[in-house]
């Protein structure tokens, strides 16, 4: 047998290799637990799982509808639960895809500048419509749609620009791409800070900008759900076109091309799908960091490196992770509840640091 010291993170060695189905089943269970927790969050403790179940049955006419007030509450929680699951799945898939394109376990939407681009787009839109306040709460008016379009456009423009600048000799060069991403993040950060300092003059606008930065899963409706769902569906179609190829790309671009992989096309498809997912998530709920980084990382430990397993598992894992973390935080802290972006930073940050500590030997080899 091998010495444990020689073993890096996730070699699928015999005996340790598991089929993805057991893990998938576990994640489905976790997802259900998270959904259950999420459906029972709130001040009306009497509206519990039974009410949620009855409401579901009532949709099909198999049960009497709930009283209007209860139905309203259950509806809000459904929206929140579904959106949380979709956003978690989209962010994790985005991270998984980017890690494959970069051949780097630490890649994330934030490295490319996708997140910063989305934030900038959203901030410009918030500034333009003069705040995110009541119009959004009621789900009315053009303001939320504009803000989401702004975020989407910002993310897409920045990612495509970075990918374009990162091309060398007609091919995407990974080191160049990473450096361009870092520079782009710095530039965007400066512009964002400028906008925020301007906005301090107007309390309503400043508040909206800050709220965006922390992320929010509250008060969202079918528009946001549809946006993330569509993005996720499109990205899902990309998985079969890139998963095997991302595995082969692990041994280097030139080597992958020599055995017949169309590397440029694979990288372009994966990059677009990842951007779409990240942009839709940020546009719908604001910034939630670390999901795209931590979830693929944990799954790699559990299931091995193959993207054919990793990418589909990211969908389940991301949804379960964000649901469980966000809902338990709300149950535990009660009225003191944290914004999801804050929770993820508090939970994900230290966890990520631990991963790095455990992985230091490998990092040195970069």
């Amino acid at each position, binding site marked *: 047998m*091998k010495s444990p010291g*020689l073993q*890096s*993170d*996730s*070699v*699928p*060695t*015999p005996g340790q290799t598991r089929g993805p189905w057991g893990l998938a089943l576990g994640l489905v269970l976790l997802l259900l637990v998270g959904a259950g927790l999420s459906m029972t969050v709130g001040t009306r403790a009497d509206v519990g799982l039974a009410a949620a179940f009855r409401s579901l049955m009532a949709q099909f006419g198999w049960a009497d509808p709930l009283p209007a007030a209860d139905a309203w509450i259950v509806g809000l929680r459904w929206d929140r639960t579904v959106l949380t699951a979709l956003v978690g799945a989209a962010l994790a898939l985005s991270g998984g895809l980017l890690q494959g394109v970069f*051949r780097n376990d630490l890649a994330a939407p934030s490295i490319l500048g996708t997140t910063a681009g989305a934030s900038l787009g959203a901030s410009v839109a918030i500034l333009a419509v003069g705040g995110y306040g009541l119009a959004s709460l009621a789900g009315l008016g053009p303001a939320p749609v504009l803000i989401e379009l702004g975020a989407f456009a910002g993310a897409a423009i920045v990612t495509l620009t970075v990918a374009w600048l990162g091309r060398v*000799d007609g091919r995407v060069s990974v080191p160049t791409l990473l450096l361009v991403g870092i520079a782009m993040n710095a530039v965007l950060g400066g512009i964002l800070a400028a906008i925020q300092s301007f906005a301090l003059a107007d309390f309503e606008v400043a508040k909206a900008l800050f709220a965006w930065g922390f992320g929010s899963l509250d008060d969202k409706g079918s528009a946001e759900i549809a946006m993330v769902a569509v993005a996720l569906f499109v990205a899902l179609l990309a*998985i*079969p*076109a890139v*998963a*095997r190829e991302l*595995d*082969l790309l*692990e*041994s*280097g*671009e*030139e*080597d992958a*091309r*020599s*055995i*017949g*992989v*169309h*590397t440029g096309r694979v990288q372009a498809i994966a990059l677009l799908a990842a951007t779409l997912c990240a942009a839709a998530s940020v546009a719908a709920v604001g910034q939630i960091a670390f999901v795209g980084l931590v979830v693929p990382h944990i799954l790699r430990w559990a299931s091995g*490196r*193959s993207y*054919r397993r990793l990418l589909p598992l990211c969908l389940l894992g991301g949804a379960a992770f964000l649901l469980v973390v966000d809902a338990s935080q709300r149950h535990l802290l009660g009225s003191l509840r944290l914004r999801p972006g804050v929770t993820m930073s508090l939970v994900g940050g230290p966890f990520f640091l631990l991963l790095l500590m455990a992985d230091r030997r490998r990092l040195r080899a970069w």
Partner: protein
Amino acid sequence: MVGPNLLSARGLTFAYPGREPVLRGVDLDLRAGEMVAVFGPNGAGKSTLLRVLAGLRQPDQGAVHAGSEALMSLPPRERARRIARMPQGLDHWPDTRVEDLVWGGRYCHIERRFWPGSPSGASTDAQAVTRAMQRTGCEPWRERSVRELSGGQRERVLLARALAQDAPVLLADEPTRSLDPAQQLETFAILRGRAAGTRAVLVVTHDWNLAAQFVDRLIFLAQGQVLADGEPGQVLRPEVLEPVYGRALHFGSMPGGAPLVLPDRSARTD
């Protein structure tokens, strides 16, 4: 008996961006049934030539044809079905099982499916993978991660992948670099076995003495140009080698008759 041209290069010149040309007008033919070795001093452009011949680099001038088709016009999968390349190591050794790495050689043959075929199946692909691993002696480590293997073992895994690719043309870049003498002979014997019928092998090597015992032709590449191209006995001669290497060589022959050229301390004139 040599057959039709499988790979032909005419007037290849190539320079990495912003550098001096590495190849300066290389002509080369590889015919079915042939085994050819390219040798030359360090920096002669051997590995670059192999990259251009494999279609991984576009030559600045000249062209490579696989049969009647221009190599660069072929889509990657189609190209990989015609030309297999055994690289000189990998940029990055992935954490994959030996068997999975060898399966990479079948990528260009497998129709797009999300889940890979089961290696235990009786498909052509599985057979090719198993045969390649048996031939190269990789079978005992099929379940292990390539990262755990030694340099020599890794070289044999890359050879197995190139064999599994099952292309008419096999290009091998320094395939015996980390092998002991017995393994060097075994690797060359495997490559020699490949170079028959409708297939051909071109190998880049430093070891002209080893190559001379196996190949049909030796190509001497120096400063990006072909200085000699012929049977080993015609190429490994003082008139050909001394202009490049100086008079530091001893010329003899193996018991079997193959030429033998060794560095000779007493012949040095400096």
